[in-house]
């Protein structure tokens, strides 16, 4: 039960990008296309799972005072592993991610999970936390790049959606201002729905509260009609 909770919280409720607002640089930089977003998401997920695992295994041996440099070296090692694997098997993806592949090291999500979760919790929990957070990151990247790629380039995963669509696309969405615009609008939409459900919950509570009060009065024999 608790493992399922650790896994699922990263997907929506504590989504690292859209709720916790961590790791914004790669989020805005690589979401010009869905294929880039998927590549970046899985690379970061791999690093996150490995670093969470290793840190939770070694947490007894890491002195508290110098834990941050140790975390960074562990993360940097796994990023190097990803970089070398990508250079060997996916050179095109590596070229399009550019320096942002190396910048996974300073992605606040990974260091944040190491500090806030893996350093304190057990091995299995930490691994599932890494999987959930990594998939949440990938999901958010895919959502943002979905809008940006279709609106900006008229393609999905590099495949044109319709003939002549490219005449009507707005190039601004794959350029830098469009990144800010898309993420801002997605955050605002999420805030709108959250506000609405909060308001409904509040109204519901008030109604219930009123009914409970009325019933209490009825039971105590006080005439509420008057």
């Amino acid at each position, binding site marked *: 039960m608790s493992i399922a909770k650790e896994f699922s919280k990263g997907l929506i409720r504590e989504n690292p990008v859209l709720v916790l607002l961590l790791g914004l640089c790669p989020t805005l930089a690589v979401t010009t296309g869905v294929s880039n977003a998927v590549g970046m998401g899985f690379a970061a997920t791999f690093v996150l799972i490995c670093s969470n695992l290793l840190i939770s295994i070694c947490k007894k041996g890491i002195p508290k005072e110098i834990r941050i440099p140790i975390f960074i070296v562990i993360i940097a090692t796994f990023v190097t592993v990803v970089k*070398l694997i990508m250079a060997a098997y996916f050179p095109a993806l590596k070229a399009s991610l550019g*320096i942002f592949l190396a910048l996974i090291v*300073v992605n606040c999500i990974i260091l944040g999970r190491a500090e806030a979760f893996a350093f304190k919790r057990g091995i299995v929990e930490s691994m599932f936390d890494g999987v959930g957070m990594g998939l949440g990151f990938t999901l958010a990247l895919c959502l943002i790049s979905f809008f940006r790629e279709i609106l900006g380039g008229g393609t999905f995963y590099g495949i044109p959606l319709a003939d002549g669509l490219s005449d009507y696309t707005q190039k601004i969405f794959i350029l830098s201002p469009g990144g800010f615009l898309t993420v801002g609008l997605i955050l605002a939409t999420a805030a709108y729905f959250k506000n609405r459900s909060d308001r409904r919950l509040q109204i519901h509570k008030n109604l219930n509260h009123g009914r409970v009060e009325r019933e209490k009065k009825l039971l105590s024999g006080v005439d509420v009609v008057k």
Partner: protein
Amino acid sequence: MEFTFEQYFALMFGLIFTQNFVLSQFLGLCPFFGVSKNRDAALGMGCAVIFVMTMASVVTMLIYKGLFLHPSLQKYHMEQYLDIVSFILVIASLVQFVEIVLKKVAPALYQTLGIYLPLITTNCAVLGVTQMKLTEFSNPAYSLAQAVWYQGLLGVFGGIGFTLAIYLMAGVRERLQSAPIPESMKGMPIAFMAGCCMALAFFGFQGFI
């Protein structure tokens, strides 16, 4: 390889305006949104970033070009697997070093910059600037001194561009605090919208070079 005056100017103007680290390359967004609530804090953060970026650029290029690519050490191919680890270590220890020195030498400056310094280690702009031109400067056409000098310039002007962006953003956000904003837009969404408008404005410099 020697830069001409035009190339120096293009480097400077490009890093500050057309390829601004924050607004067109998406480097260093965490402090851009996190430390831009008031102008003094933004300026303090900017100055600390300029300093660390310049130092980190010079030191990492010295290590990369002078040690990893040194003819007698090239057979170990250290530049392929040690660059990320060594660069991040250099940045982390530099930040720590700057913090200790500032505390001792200029306590007043430390008071203003101190709280931002630990944040700089995980600022992607610093690691980004050291990685950006690695392949270009590893070309033997650049001597060690030239590569270090140009990389240092990248750090200085990149830092100035970062400071400009974060300072302007802080000015905008100070005004936003007293503006009537729709409920759903409050907080981060409106900050992103402001970022979008600023990126659009900086986009206007695009054809200059």
